[in-house]
């Protein structure tokens, strides 16, 4: 374990894990930070025709360096189009966006996310966060929503104080009944410890892969609800030398994202 950990950090592994989910020719809606790094890595490593979209309007850029805003000029660098929010979200609602990556202060066993508030009083919250932004929209529309997040028992909670962004809602067929587009929903949860998917019937979060250096118990101990377990839990593959080269030398040379 120590030898492996010396070669890469958990953020690098999370980004590589996420990037591997993005096949060539797919279309992904991303924000700043780790999701953007994952999309950039996929483009360099194995998916040169990955279409990257930013909610503010940047469409299919060849991103030169990490943007600081999903609307800054890096998001349209050598892009095919500089459009607007409706163009991007309408494309998603039409069914053209395959993936998105989101995060939040809280996540529950159905992949619902809270990025709005902590505390019961909506008009006078204990802690106020930014709100949905485009997260609820991307999660409603993109076929497969993924989450990249550090894992701890507070964040992985039995019940979100507030559901900003839909996962599988109350599980089972509740999402299908809600009116949200059919067939879209949470797909994978990528953390510093493990990878989870969702059991097809109950739509509950299920452990499928563990990162090198962690045990099943670590993952469960850092989760505020009971995780289902896949029949076969595999060990997640560490980053390759080539992936690390792209990440460190080309995508994030100043280590804004991977350095943390």
């Amino acid at each position, binding site marked *: 374990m120590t030898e492996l950990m010396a070669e890469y950090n958990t953020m690098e592994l999370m980004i590589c894990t996420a990037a591997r989910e993005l096949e060539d020719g797919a279309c992904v809606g991303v924000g700043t930070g780790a999701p953007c790094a994952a999309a950039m890595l996929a483009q360099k490593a194995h998916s040169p025709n990955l279409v990257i979209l930013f909610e503010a309007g940047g469409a299919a850029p060849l991103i030169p360096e990490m943007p600081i805003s999903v609307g800054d000029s890096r998001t349209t660098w050598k892009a095919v189009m*500089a459009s*607007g929010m409706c163009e991007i979200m309408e494309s998603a609602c039409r069914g053209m966006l395959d993936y998105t990556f989101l995060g939040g202060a809280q996540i529950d066993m159905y992949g619902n996310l809270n990025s709005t508030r902590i505390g019961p009083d909506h008009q006078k919250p204990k802690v106020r966060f930014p709100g949905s932004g485009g997260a609820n*929209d991307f999660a409603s529309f993109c076929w497969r929503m993924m989450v990249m997040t550090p894992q701890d028992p507070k964040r992985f909670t039995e019940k979100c104080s507030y559901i900003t962004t839909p996962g599988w809602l109350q599980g089972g067929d509740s999402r299908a009944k809600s009116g949200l587009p059919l067939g879209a929903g949470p797909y994978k949860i990528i953390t510093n410890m493990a990878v989870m998917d969702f059991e097809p019937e109950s739509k509950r979060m299920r452990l499928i892969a563990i990162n090198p250096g962690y045990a099943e118990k670590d993952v469960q101990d850092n989760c505020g609800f009971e995780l289902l377990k896949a029949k076969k839990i595999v060990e997640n593959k560490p980053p390759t030398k080539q992936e690390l080269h792209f990440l460190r030398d080309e995508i994030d040379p100043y280590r804004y994202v991977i350095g943390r």
Partner: protein
Amino acid sequence: MEVLAQGIGAIFTDPDADKARAFFRKKSRALKPKVMSVKEAVEKFVHDGDYLCIGGFGANRIPAAVCHEILRQGRKKMGFAGHTSTHDFQILCAGEVFDKLDVAYIVGLEARGLSPNARKYMESGKVNVSEWTNYSLSVRFKAAAAGVSFYPSRNIMGTDTFHYSGARIIACPFTGVKYAAMPAIYPDVAAIHVHEADIYGNCRIRGITVSDLDVARAAKHLIITCERLIQNEEIRRDPSFTSIPYWCVDAVCEVPYGSYPGNMYGEYFSDEEHIKEWLKVEENPEEFKKFLEKNIYSCKDHFEYIEKNGGMHKLLKLREKEFMFSKARD
């Protein structure tokens, strides 16, 4: 039409399309010069209690000069569309300008972190909050721009975001599928920063347009700030570049570097050093008061603000950054 479910959030603007039509019937179509100072534009078109919308994307192509002037003139009790508002939100919170708020994205400055003062204001209980999403607010402007009272969308259903919004769930008359009906927002006033405009208000925007083209059409009054004025002949030479026509516009203010400290596509990058200073100084209310006095209240205009923060030397650096793609977060 049967309403299947309804959020409990307030609707701060009247979505009635006929009332809006009555307003727009009287709005001047005259081709007349509208050039004025930012001070004059805010005096004329921004009033206490108005519902305000700020164009751009938080710290990208924002009408920063208008935001500062609204503070200087002490506007209060406004309604505001928190549509990916980041640095603009931070400024307006510093003046406690609004007490009614439609939220899509607030308080945060994306990868830069959260604004301590904006957060404090939002946790104070002083603001009546209605919850939405970026796309929800986009289509609320789109509905208004199209002259209808609502727009159907397929997001927010099943979440607390719906519960705390003013949206209503209806069934499609053709398929029976559920939609969230988003009520139109006709803002009393909007301010948008553009690259080029003529003296009548015909505008050209480069880069992303976010929701600005709909906002421009939805707003009852529109203040345009521009990097530069151009000749009307230039607009007419190739009208394919015009994205906001003059009849939407009430004021044209030439404000070079008007998005500073925000990014302006193809012109200059954001001043990350200065934005970091904002975020830092907000942690200390006394220091923040002094900071606001120096950077906003004691400034005559946007240029005095820029001069206090590095002037032309700083701007040239930011231009270099925009073009050379040197380290974005220096």
